[in-house]
């Protein structure tokens, strides 16, 4: 089976700092792949490169067999930025209606995605007046409007309470059941057990491409945070 996202020898320099050096990875279709690593390790930059909004210095990034940034991919990739990128001075519904128009999604999708992120009650509220977690969900809802086949979500569950977080993972599961491929980043290893595949990242490199079970087995640690630590120690040894 061909990978949905194929990255070969990616090299990204921001300013005069090398953020990603010679990184290669594959993301398998129809699964939730977790991109885990500490803050500042290059997760967001990697995601920007996948979405095609990052200037890259070398290597290739291909999504669904096409080079990242190819115009036709803009219809098929949903991208959640780390900082919610919605208009603070519009209501939730107005934001969704605008992004629906931009992505060519029918108006009835607005109500559907609102339900998906459990924000029906806040539909008429100005985004500025919402909490951080709610804003993230508005932003997430805008990425779901046109039913993208590939979803690149940069820390979608940060700042959410445990119940909402569980609900969101449930809806991610439903998306993959519907055939979508998800790449979800997080700096918290707590989320790792929710993923099908794991990419452990540190200092701009992928330390391990594995699954939660394989990681436990390989390190002999039951706790995934400790397992990640063991991988880091192993790579430094």
């Amino acid at each position, binding site marked *: 089976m061909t990978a949905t996202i194929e990255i070969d020898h990616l090299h990204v320099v921001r300013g005069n700092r090398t953020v990603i050096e010679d990184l290669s990875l594959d993301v398998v279709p129809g699964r939730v792949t977790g991109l885990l690593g500490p803050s500042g390790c290059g997760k967001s930059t990697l995601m920007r490169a996948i979405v095609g909004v990052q200037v890259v210095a070398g290597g290739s990034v291909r999504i669904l067999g096409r080079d990242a940034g190819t115009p036709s991919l803009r219809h098929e990739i949903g991208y959640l930025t780390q900082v919610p*990128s919605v208009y603070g001075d519009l209501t939730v519904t107005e934001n969704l209606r605008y992004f629906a128009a931009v992505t060519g999604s029918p108006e009835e999708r607005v109500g559907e995605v609102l339900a998906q992120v459990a924000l029906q009650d806040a539909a008429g509220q100005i985004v500025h007046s919402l909490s951080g977690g709610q804003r993230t969900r508005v932003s997430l809802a805008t990425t779901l409007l046109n039913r993208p086949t590939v979803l690149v979500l940069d820390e979608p569950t940060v700042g959410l309470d445990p119940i909402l977080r569980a609900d969101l993972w449930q809806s991610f599961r439903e998306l993959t059941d519907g055939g979508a491929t998800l790449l979800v980043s997080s700096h918290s290893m707590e989320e790792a057990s929710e993923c099908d595949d794991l990419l452990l990242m540190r200092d701009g490199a992928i330390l391990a491409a594995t699954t939660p079970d394989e990681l436990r087995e390989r390190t002999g640690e039951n706790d995934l945070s400790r397992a990640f630590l063991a991988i880091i120690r192993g790579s430094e040894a």
Partner: protein
Amino acid sequence: MIATARRVLWQIRRDRRTIALLLGVPVGLLALLRYVFDSRLFIFQDVGAPMCGLFPFILMFLITSIAMLRERTSGTLERLMSLPISKPALLGGYAIAFGVLAAVQAAIVCTVGFTLLGLNADHGAWLVGVLAIGNALLGMALGLFASAFARTEFQAVQFMPAVVFPQLLLCGLFAPRGAMARPLQDVAYAFPLTYAFDALRRATNPGPLGGTVVLDVAVVIGATIAALGLGAATLRRRTP
């Protein structure tokens, strides 16, 4: 394009104070000018009449540079650039929304200026209004371009005096260009606002409009398109 225009107008609609300032300030300033030149009303006519058509230029420059800067810094621009929206559609949306605002602003300031305050527009106040909308779009295009060079709103605001004031000073509004130092007269012809002013002066003064007014308008339109093109080039799909 329409979607973006609607969205920009939605944003502004909610900001009542901005609307009040946008529509009230030009009228207030014009009335102030009227009474500053209370005993020399011919000066008010010379300065005030073309000014009706220049206000939208100044304000749209400012509003666009801030609105675009916000779009850049809030991450919404990056988001839009990852979506299937073309740059001309985005810029066109802004142009329509701000064009609508400029039309309302110009209608109010022209109505007050040419009726209540007693200004004369020999070729019709409507012509001043139409020119004002064109000038507003020029201001918008320059503001869009300027916003690419500002990282903060403080910087964006400073571009107003840097880009707009020299053009206002040299266009002939405050002193006839013929009375300026020779090099300044030449420099003035490099600025689009000079042509905008000339068109407005011809529209508000007695005597035939002449063919040059068409040339003036063409220069303003050309400069607007050029600035929009430069502005579009600053909207990058990929950023470092």
